[in-house]
């Protein structure tokens, strides 16, 4: 057998195992239950949560984008490490609070969280749309990553568009049949695979190409020390750009709908222990950065095509490793992309159904809702496929674009939790303005002031508008505000009144 055949065989084998694990985990539970599909019965333990988080660290972005950035841009790639390490710290404070509120009102989505607090249908629809939009962009990064893997690991025999199509089919089957529990169990399996493979591969590449990392970095530093710095004359990124990209990613990280789902389904202790472990998880991607640096000065950028392809390129073309080894790397990278893709697809369908469909057609039965959620998965995948194949953006750029939209929820969510005076009109106009500003700078402007990330400019406009409009509009008065801002007090009250939620606005 030739190399590419062996590697394809291993990748197919992996996909089959992943599917079996997923489907088996989904069996034995009532598939038709809406509650089960959405938060896996609200009882995910610490073990599952850790692997879900670990799965979130490794994605197409860290497997392909991180080495790509290290290879073509140098020091700016450290942003990935920094953002992964610090992004979860605020969750220590916010997570348990969001979790308590979610359980009190029986929430399972970000839309539900916002809409219960602000009691505004237009706001629910808006949040649903933006979450849907951002998730599709995120999913596109993963499909793109999977397509690159299929393409390069089979020496170009699977065309890019076809690889992306296979990836799409896999993700849809997976999500539509299993729900969140399936995603969680597969991540346990995938987490182990990704960690082992990335370390073995990273160390092998550095050893084979340079001997030690000291020799490798000495060579890079000798030819261009600014490549290993930010904002110097020969650097590839300015100081403000670096800082704002980290800020956008860290602030936006907790606003992803799947982070809300995670908050609802985990207790405070689990959340805190997860935050604790996360900086160490971030260090797991170091070998992937090293692999990217290994190619600097040895491989021509033009020979690779796109920077995202450097890791598979090194393995297949440059190092001529045995076929089974690169099949294994392919499987790990697929695992990385899939674990992120299924979580994000799942939440995109949920937010869209909750925010847009349920507000426009309020009288749907549970069965109809579940059907819409599953069909939404197919549509979401198709849209992401189009962006991945025709969008022409790199993996890192796609993800940063998605963060520009998702970050616009931050002012609304934080004031829902801590600011009584905020009004629904304030949040609504804030999000609209922030999203519009971000959209303008991403799509139409050629540059931003001081090279600040568009999402951050949008966030500033968003916050100012939200505060301004809140003060000129009439304060919202309802009992929900207290149970959000001062959530602990109400919990003891509701406990005495039995476990029924005390508000009936929320019909999920």
């Amino acid at each position, binding site marked *: 057998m030739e190399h590419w055949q062996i590697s394809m065989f291993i990748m197919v084998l992996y996909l089959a195992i992943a599917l079996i694990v997923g489907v088996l985990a989904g069996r034995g539970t009532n598939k038709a239950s809406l509650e089960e599909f959405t938060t896996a019965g609200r009882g995910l333990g610490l073990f599952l949560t850790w692997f879900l988080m670990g799965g979130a660290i490794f994605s197409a972005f860290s497997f392909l984008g991180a080495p790509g950035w290290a290879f073509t841009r140098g020091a700016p790639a450290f942003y990935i490490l920094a953002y992964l390490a610090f992004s979860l710290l605020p969750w220590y*404070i916010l997570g348990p609070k969001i979790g308590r509120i979610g359980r009190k009102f029986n929430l399972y989505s970000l839309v539900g969280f916002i809409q219960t607090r602000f009691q505004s249908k237009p706001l629910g629809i808006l949040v649903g749309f933006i979450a849907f939009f951002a998730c599709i962009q995120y999913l596109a990064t993963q499909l793109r990553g999977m397509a690159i893997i299929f393409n390069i690991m089979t020496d170009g025999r699977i065309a890019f568009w076809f690889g992306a199509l296979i990836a799409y089919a896999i993700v849809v089957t997976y999500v539509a049949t299993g729900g969140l529990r399936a995603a969680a169990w597969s991540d346990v399996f995938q987490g182990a695979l990704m960690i082992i493979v990335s370390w073995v591969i990273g160390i092998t590449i550095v050893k084979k190409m340079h001997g*030690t990392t000291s020799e490798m*970095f000495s060579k890079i530093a000798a030819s261009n020390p600014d490549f*290993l710095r930010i904002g110097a004359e020969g650097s590839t990124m300015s100081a*403000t750009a670096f*800082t704002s990209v*980290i800020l956008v990613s860290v602030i936006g990280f907790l606003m992803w709908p799947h982070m809300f789902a995670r908050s609802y389904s985990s207790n*405070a*202790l689990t959340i805190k222990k997860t935050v604790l472990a996360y900086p160490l998880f971030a260090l797991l991607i170091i070998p992937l*950065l090293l692999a990217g640096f290994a190619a600097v000065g040895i491989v021509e950028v033009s020979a690779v095509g796109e920077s995202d392809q450097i890791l598979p390129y090194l393995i297949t073309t440059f190092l001529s490793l045995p076929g089974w080894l690169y099949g294994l790397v392919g499987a790990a990278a697929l695992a990385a992309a899939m674990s992120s893709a299924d979580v994000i697809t799942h939440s995109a369908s949920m937010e869209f159904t909750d925010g847009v469909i349920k507000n426009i057609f309020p009288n749907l039965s549970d069965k109809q809702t579940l059907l819409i959620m599953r069909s939404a998965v197919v549509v979401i995948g198709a849209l992401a496929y189009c962006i991945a194949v025709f969008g022409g953006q790199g993996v890192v750029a796609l993800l940063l674009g998605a963060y520009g939209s998702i970050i616009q929820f931050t002012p609304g969510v934080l004031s829902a939790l801590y600011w009584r005076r905020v009004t629904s009109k304030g949040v609504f106009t804030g999000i609209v303005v922030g999203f519009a500003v971000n959209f303008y700078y991403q799509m139409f402007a050629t540059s931003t002031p001081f090279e600040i990330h568009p999402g951050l400019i949008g966030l500033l406009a968003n916050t100012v508008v939200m505060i301004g409009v809140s003060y000129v509009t009439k304060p919202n008065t309802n009992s929900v505000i207290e149970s959000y801002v001062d959530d602990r007090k109400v919990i003891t009250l509701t406990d005495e009144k039995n476990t029924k939620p005390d508000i009936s606005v929320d019909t999920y």
Partner: protein
Amino acid sequence: MGIRRFRTIYIIISILLFSTVLFPMFTIGNKAYPIIVGIPYSFFWVILWILITFFTVLILYFLDPDKEEA
């Protein structure tokens, strides 16, 4: 230590730790040389602060008065 007080301390310490990888603080770490434990100083700086963050949050976790809550 009260829950509110702990929260304030946690927020201040996290912001300080986070600021080490952002400009202007990152200026201190923004150098290629010396190459320490096999990696450039800038890379080392980021990893060092991630490790310090891990240990600091670990200590904070043990001081947290609120973690027994179900």
